[in-house]
């Protein structure tokens, strides 16, 4: 009890916020950057963002510590975060969870090192391979036969990948996927550790696992080595702020060096203080916050399922392996029975009903539920979905779910990205090796990654996604009409 009380007591502190308040009260005359000088030099910006906001936009200095080499208040705040997440150390990240994922991979792997990962990783992971020269070993995550969503990794598939690549340095796991699906994190971690591989976990959508009850296991709780936690998603901090957690034998100093290779030296105190304040709120109230969120998600799921046609899925999908657990705070809805692609429902919700959801793909939509939601807004979402069904539903055969396309990796992402290349109309590129990404954003999971051979199947899927209205991105050509392919394969 006493230990718990002490922890609770410590977690009430927010050292960065306190130091900023203290600094403000000293009314120090600023002859340093930023040049807006507490907003006085840019009144329009101060009016737009608020005076308080600009007052807190300050530079690293002795009383406010330095993100590149924390020794005082940032260090304290990082220690409190580590304690709250049960990690050995927590790094405050201000270049997005993208930078945390990249730091994990670059800490674990040097050029030429192998890393085992599911193919449905976020682009940031494959970007890290381009930067570092690490070599991916993909595990097919499989696609749910009815819902068309990519699943978790099966323990058996990972074991096979490990046995075939015992020299791999690390394994990367999504916990959960964008849709809320979790692999058997404990089993995968134990398995990888038996072969001396580091376990890296992309928890961009899993911050709440550390605080809520009855939620899937978190990376630190199963003894994983590193985790990237998007505090700005379910954690409530400002966009672009994130935590990188480390555990076990991972070196704090080396990880810091890797982070500093790419992270800004002018870390924003707006982002840092938002991480600090949000960590405090989660540590003190997280359990209650996520109980409410799960309850709201469940209520909405039930109401959507009562409309008919839509399928808001949850734990009934669990299969003990590729869907080992499900994040019940996620509101993922299959829309195909209504005869509409998820992306079509997504567009109608915004254009006709002024409701913006997180994303829509071919078969699904995802509405992000958080502590900031009000019941009346949930009612609007449900009512709008009911109306969309009444007014727009079509024949369900027009929505076609594609199977998982197993990538044919011809080159590492780094080799392919930097290789001599040539631009081709995308429709004529089948058979060539892509030098770049093609993906729908969101969710930002590549359809094609650099180094993968382009097939007719992939091109069909890209066409279909375009026709349904997905926002495609990744290629140098912003219209996705041309693609850069490797030159040597052009005869």
């Amino acid at each position: 009890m006493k230990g718990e009380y002490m922890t609770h007591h410590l977690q009430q502190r927010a050292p960065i916020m306190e130091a900023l308040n203290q600094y403000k009260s000293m009314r120090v005359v600023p002859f340093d950057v930023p040049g807006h000088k507490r907003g006085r030099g840019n009144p329009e910006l101060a009016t737009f963002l608020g005076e308080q906001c600009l007052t807190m936009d300050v530079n690293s200095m002795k009383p406010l510590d330095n993100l590149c080499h924390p020794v005082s208040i940032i260090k304290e705040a990082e220690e409190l975060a580590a304690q709250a997440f049960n990690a050995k150390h927590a790094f405050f990240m201000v270049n997005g969870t993208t930078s945390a994922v990249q730091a994990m991979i670059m800490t674990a792997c040097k050029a030429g090192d192998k890393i085992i990962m599911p193919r449905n990783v976020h682009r940031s992971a494959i970007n890290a391979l381009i930067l570092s020269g690490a070599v991916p070993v993909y595990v097919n995550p499989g696609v749910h036969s009815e819902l068309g969503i990519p699943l978790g990794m099966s323990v058996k598939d990972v074991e096979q990948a490990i046995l075939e690549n015992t020299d791999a340095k690390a394994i990367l796991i999504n916990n959960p996927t964008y849709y809320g699906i979790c692999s058997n994190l404990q089993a995968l971690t134990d398995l990888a550790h038996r072969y001396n591989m580091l376990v890296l976990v992309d928890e961009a959508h899993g911050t709440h696992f550390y605080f809520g009850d009855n939620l899937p296991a978190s990376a630190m709780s199963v003894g994983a080595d590193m985790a990237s936690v998007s505090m700005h998603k379910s954690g409530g901090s400002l966009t672009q702020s994130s935590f990188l957690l480390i555990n076990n034998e991972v070196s704090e100093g080396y990880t810091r060096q890797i982070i500093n290779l790419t992270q800004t030296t002018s870390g924003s105190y707006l982002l840092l203080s938002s991480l600090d304040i949000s960590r405090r709120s989660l540590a003190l109230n997280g359990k209650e916050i996520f109980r409410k969120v799960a309850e709201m998600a469940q209520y909405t799921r039930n109401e959507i399922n009562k409309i008919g046609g839509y399928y808001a899925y949850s734990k009934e999908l669990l299969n003990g392996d590729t869907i080992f657990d499900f994040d019940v705070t996620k509101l993922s809805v299959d829309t195909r029975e209504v005869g509409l692609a998820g992306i079509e429902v997504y567009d109608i919700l915004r254009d006709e009903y002024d409701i913006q959801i997180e994303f829509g793909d071919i078969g699904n939509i995802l509405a992000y539920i958080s502590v900031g939601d009000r019941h009346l807004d949930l009612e609007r979402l449900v009512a709008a979905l009911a109306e969309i069904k009444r007014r727009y539903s079509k024949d369900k055969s027009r929505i076609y779910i594609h199977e998982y396309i197993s990538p044919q990796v011809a080159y590492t992402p780094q080799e392919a990205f930097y290789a001599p290349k040539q631009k081709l109309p995308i429709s004529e590129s089948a058979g060539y090796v892509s030098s770049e990404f093609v993906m729908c954003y969101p969710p930002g999971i590549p359809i094609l990654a650099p180094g993968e051979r382009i097939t007719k199947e992939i091109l069909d899927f890209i066409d279909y996604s375009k026709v349904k209205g997905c926002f495609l991105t990744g290629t140098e050509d912003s219209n996705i009409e041309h693609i850069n392919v490797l030159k040597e394969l052009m005869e």
Partner: protein
Amino acid sequence: MNLWYTEKHSPNVRFSLKVEEHLFTGKSDFQKIDILQTSEFGRVLTLDGLVMLTEKDEFIYHEMITHVALATNPSIKKVLVIGAGDGGTIRELTAYATIEQIDMVEIDEMVVDVCREYLPQTASKLADPRVNLYFEDGLKFVRRIENEYDLIIVDSTDPFGPGEGLFTKEFYGNCYKALTDDGILVNQHESPFYAEDALGMRKAHQKIVGFFPVCKVYQFHMPTYPSGHWLFGFASKKFDPTQDLDAASWNELNLKTKYYNTDIHVGSFALPNYVKEQLKDVE
């Protein structure tokens, strides 16, 4: 003692009432509820600091939100009222012996409780046996209903706060679905005068026009509402409110009204040019 209640009618215009006594203040799950005893307007109900009704002028609002539809289609039997926690709309409806069922859906039970205690003038008929009270979200209620009501009256607050769901496209679409083929929708339609209210008016009109073949707007004079110039919407699947007005039948009913009569009925649909233009812009 010199106590005044002040409400902002626009960012630059204020409206004040001399207060004799602050009779009630309370906070529900949805809003702040106050009852004031004023010198000129009698008892006043405010929600989140905005006047909802006063004893002196509520008759104008409540007569106009009900009798126009009932005089257009005297065979209305089943009515859904959304909002209307003060009971004034219900009071007017219960005057019609031909109405068989009145379902009232108010999100905030506390408003009804407070009005029952402090505003018997409007709340007196809530106990009528034809009236069923439901305390829940109006949007949720109407979403589950199909082809059921002859008349839906949306007696809502403003397009912000607890009532904002009642100014949405999904709400009007669900109302359309919940109405019978003879169905009429009457809604609180904001005001054309001050910019913020006018925006609410235009948006509401734009959303309703998409669903109903007949979409009209009518006006009334409400001394305590911003600018005093206020509107209701009349949308229906079949009936035109002026062409189909059955004045003789309504007058035979001999209902006692202080504002509404069948001449006002017709006249209220004659709109000033600046209002017509604003509505036309969004049609």
